[in-house]
């Protein structure tokens, strides 16, 4: 059993889930409640990872992180090392890759709130932030938790993007799914099976948690 890969994956997924929570709350709020005409454009960009082959996303991310791109140059200059094939690079790639899995459940939960509740809050003198904290967020907490769990789980399971951006460096970028792939390549089916079983059990637990919490069928299905 590749404990190093499991620990690394857990650390990556937890970090990504927390970052996504911070990003997805304001983003989903804006997407749900903004009356601007071009929200659909942002919506499409956010949902892109749902349909894009992970290798395509990984390829462009690799280009963007390379020392020839402005982002890659800036990162190298300010940190002293390149972004590609590092843990930080992997975090950024995973955040983008799992973005729709965090934003969509949250946005869907926001959208099902009766609009008159937010309006009532405003007429009672509540600021935009107070309305969000006291009405919008508590009434969509299930969606927020679903987003958190799904982005964690989705990050754990990613493969293509990790391989493109992170490569396969033990303790730095070798995640569980890469480790399984490695074992299979080396014909070590026994080890591959052990790690795969851990992932299978974990995925099942996550889905049971989400469905059990929401008590509604297909709650975890992202609405594309």
């Amino acid at each position, binding site marked *: 059993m590749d404990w190093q890969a499991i620990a690394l994956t857990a650390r990556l997924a937890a970090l990504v889930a927390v970052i996504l929570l911070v990003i997805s709350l304001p983003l989903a709020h804006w997407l749900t409640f903004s009356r601007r005409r071009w929200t659909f454009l942002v919506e499409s960009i956010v949902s892109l990872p749902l349909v894009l082959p992970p290798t395509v996303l990984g390829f462009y991310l690799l280009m963007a992180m390379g020392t020839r791109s402005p982002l890659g140059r800036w990162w190298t200059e300010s940190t002293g090392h390149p972004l590609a094939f590092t843990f930080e690079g992997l975090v950024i790639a995973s955040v983008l890759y799992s973005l729709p899995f965090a934003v969509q459940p949250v946005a869907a939960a926001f959208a099902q709130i009766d609009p*008159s509740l937010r*309006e009532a809050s*405003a*007429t*009672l003198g509540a600021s*935009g932030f107070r309305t969000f904290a006291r*009405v919008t967020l508590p*009434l969509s907490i299930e969606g927020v938790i679903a987003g958190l769990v799904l982005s964690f789980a989705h990050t754990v399971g990613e493969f293509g993007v990790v391989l493109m951006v992170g490569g396969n460096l033990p303790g730095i970028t070798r995640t569980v799914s890469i480790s399984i792939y490695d074992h299979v390549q080396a014909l070590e089916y026994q080890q591959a099976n052990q790690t795969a079983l851990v992932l299978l059990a974990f995925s099942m637990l996550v889905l049971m948690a989400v469905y059990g919490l929401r008590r509604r069928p297909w709650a975890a299905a992202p609405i594309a």
Partner: protein
Amino acid sequence: MTLAVSVTKRLGPGSTLDVELVAPPGITMLFGASGSGKTTLLRCIAGLIRPDQGRLAIDDRILFDAKNGIDVPVQDRHVGYVFQQAALFPHMSLRDNIGYGLHRLADDERQARVSTIAESFRISSILDRPPAQVSGGERQRAALARALVTEPSVLLLDEPLSALDQTIQSRIMDDLRRANEARRIPMLYVTHSHREVYTLGHQAVVIDTGRVIARGTPHEVLDRPEQSVLANLAGFENVFDAVAIERRERAGTMECRVEGTSTELEVPLNAAAVGDRIRIAIRAGDVLVGNEQPRGLSARNVLRGQLIELSAHGPTMVAVVDAGARFVVHLTPTGVESLHLKPGDHVWLIVKTYSCRIVVETPWQHS
């Protein structure tokens, strides 16, 4: 405090809300059919939607002024709003709901105010329950308390009682009247029920297709509807197109024939000349029914007809009688019983001249 409103807002293709009104302290009923723009007007005043043009002010405090680019955000307007479906926060107890707008007050001060207002709205005993565990009437009373406890400068009510049954409605109307006596602020009350206009309003403003078509006391507006739109709204179930056939200047009456029939009605005299088309509105409750020809009556309109349909609507029996023209008549169940009325029977209809109102078809422009 007085609310001054003068706004325009496009409602959709070809329809625009264009309303000017002044609401003094007391209850002003905004009366109109659904889709007439009355809810849009309330939402403009609250700041939930932005008018295209115009000005909104409470005394000299300006809420909105398109010319000077003033648009005070909803949360700073200090305008109370009671929604049709109460809109209580489902995840909070009634107590937290009512205290929601008092978040700037200290805890004990807030609790004291919540308790006081809960008492006056008779919901003290259920304050710790969530909205899902109280009745519809209790929910609406909590919503009223929640809006009033913040001591708003204006209270806006959007059909707050339309989902409740009549007994509960009248009890909440009493609550509202008492609240209005305790704190004199302008209250704008949107409704499409003429019953509510009569029982609650000090002033009635009638809105049709985005414009004010009549205003005055409820009795001024509803008892003598001058337009057929209003006649329908005000509960005049019978509206007939007719032609004036004879003017009786001395009697102050006029004989008319209902178009497409030989039915003749005597109505109060107005400016119509012989041959002019007019429209006559009669309340279903103002028509009497007899099962034999009445004698010795002062009523001039006695018509023979056949009972076509008889159905119960709550405590009212609704009869449709074909007397050349079709009349809708409201009766009490005991009235129906004592006359042994059943569909197919020949009956006599009695209508007083002054129960016939003459209405015009086109809404006049209010200046």
